[in-house]
């Protein structure tokens, strides 16, 4: 079970420390005080002894520090962390069924359909720093998920060596300086790959300390930035950049602001740079490959790949290779400019992206058409999905005996809230062509016709 090392782990002598920082280095800001590497290690070692025997840990901690402690403890206990953004009952029940013998690490009294273990931590630096454990680079540290075209999530494995290598690569990419450690204020959940890499893993191996208090609303971000010393790096998303700019008032001095999860409009980047007097950077990545490139948005469309990451063009797809990571096919289409630079051509059309989450359109359609009483149906993605904050998907359904409300209610447990249709429209038939295909324009025209007042 959980304590049996994988065969690959025994075969490889390579090891990486759990923490690559000095014992008194600040790794996190938690409950308004700095937490040192020694304190974090002490908390992780203590929790590792309290964890139940299990195969996997579903890390549901919302508190970023509790999340980090739980992740480290699970790593020590050889319990890979399952990271999911779907915390719905149905989603978690499906995860528990797929990974039998797993439990959930929680930092609040959450009601979840699997055994739980509360995560306790105190963040206090011990009198004597414990020795830092070495972890085989080949140990499976985390499993992350993307939505697949079958409607079921696809699992992606992250080895410890890959995560450490990427943290070091990020430190080089953003020239983080050990002589002047930075404070990271992340607005992205730790379960999201971008948040996991930049706000949980980075402090373990790079000169950075991550803020673990609230950082969702503009006022939270203001308070967080004011609470940490310079140099500050804001790790966020286009949505939150927009909200921060709309909320008005300047920000304390920043060393950089970093955006990911969706393309950052040039105008927004320009406004952010002018208002905040800081470079507005973007990271390009994906759940299955992590962060692989960055750019300053205003410098143009060329992305610079992280050190150690290489891209190979194969037929229609791009493969990404990196230390300790299996080559992965990229979901976006790119054009290589030279060995270290590329530009994005676009996304494969089956993918829908919203609020940092990704879904497969065919997967969504499959979930829809598998509902009882639904004879045909399709999701429609508005053209301006990523330009208009209030834009969401809609669903057009053929279901003679069902109401739109009942269909929506049933989708709720099965579909990420962000991808729930804002409208469910019942029709007699979908405008399929003679091949049975549903041209997007025909579906759009049908909806436009229905919307036109009679």
């Amino acid at each position, binding site marked *: 079970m959980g304590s049996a090392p994988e065969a690959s782990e025994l075969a490889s002598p390579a090891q990486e420390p759990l923490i690559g920082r000095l014992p008194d280095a600040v790794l996190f800001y938690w409950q308004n005080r700095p937490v040192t590497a020694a304190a974090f290690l002490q908390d992780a070692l203590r929790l590792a002894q309290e964890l139940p025997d299990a195969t996997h840990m579903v890390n549901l901690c*919302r508190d970023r520090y509790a999340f980090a402690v739980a992740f480290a403890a699970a790593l020590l206990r050889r319990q890979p962390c399952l990271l999911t953004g779907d915390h*719905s009952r149905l989603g978690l029940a499906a995860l528990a069924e797929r990974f039998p013998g797993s439990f959930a690490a929680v930092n*609040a009294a959450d009601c979840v359909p699997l055994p739980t273990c509360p995560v306790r931590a105190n963040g206090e630096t011990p009198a004597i720093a414990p020795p830092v454990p070495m972890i085989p680079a080949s140990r499976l540290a985390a499993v992350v998920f993307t939505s697949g075209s079958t409607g079921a999530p696809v699992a992606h494995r992250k080895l410890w060596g890959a995560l450490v290598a990427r943290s070091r690569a990020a430190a080089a990419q953003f020239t983080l300086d050990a002589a002047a450690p930075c404070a990271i204020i992340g607005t992205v959940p730790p379960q999201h790959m971008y948040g996991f890499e930049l706000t949980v893993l980075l402090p373990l191996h790079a000169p950075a300390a991550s803020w673990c208090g*609230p950082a*969702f*609303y*503009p*006022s*939270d971000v203001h*308070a967080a930035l004011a609470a940490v010393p310079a140099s500050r790096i804001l790790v966020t998303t286009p*949505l*939150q950049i927009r*909200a921060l700019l*709309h*909320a008005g008032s300047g920000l304390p001095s920043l060393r950089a602001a970093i955006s990911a999860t969706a393309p950052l409009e040039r105008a927004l980047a320009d406004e952010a740079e002018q208002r905040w007097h800081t470079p507005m950077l973007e990271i390009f990545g994906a759940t299955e490959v992590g962060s692989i490139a960055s750019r300053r948005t205003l410098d143009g469309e060329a992305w610079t790949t992280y050190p150690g990451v290489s891209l190979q063009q194969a037929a229609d797809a791009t493969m990404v290779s990196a230390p300790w990571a299996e080559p992965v096919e990229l979901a976006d289409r790119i054009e290589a400019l030279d060995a270290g630079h590329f530009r994005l051509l676009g996304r494969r059309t089956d993918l829908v992206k*919203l*609020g940092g989450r990704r879904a497969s359109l065919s997967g969504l359609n499959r979930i829809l058409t598998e509902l009882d009483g639904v004879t045909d149906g399709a999701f429609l993605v508005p053209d301006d999905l990523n330009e208009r*904050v*209030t834009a969401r998907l809609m669903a057009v359904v053929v279901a003679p005996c069902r109401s739109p409300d009942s269909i*929506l*209610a049933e989708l*709720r447990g099965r579909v990420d*809230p*962000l991808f*729930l249709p*804002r*409208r469910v429209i019942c029709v007699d038939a979908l405008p399929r062509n003679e091949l049975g295909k549903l041209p997007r324009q025909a579906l759009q025209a049908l909806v436009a016709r229905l919307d036109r007042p009679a």
Partner: protein
Amino acid sequence: MTELGNSASQTLDGQTAPERAVAELLVNTLQLEVAVDAIDPDMRLFGEGLGLDSIDALELALAITRAYGFELRSDDERNQQIFASLRSLTGHIEAHRTK
């Protein structure tokens, strides 16, 4: 109930005047496909009920600041209570509004 019971648009179906104002803010800000009257004060706003999501929460926070003059903070557990329903959100707004 209200004295204006003969006017269909003002029967309020249980909404108080401040609740109706917040319901209007919700529908207009988020461009929801529901009638303002149709939002039951006890209906859940996130997840079930109105089915709002995290993008909506951020957008709503900006609109609340513009309309009522105070800023929302995420003090975790309490925040879930505030956003639980139209009634709880309105109660929070009425207690903290500066305009």
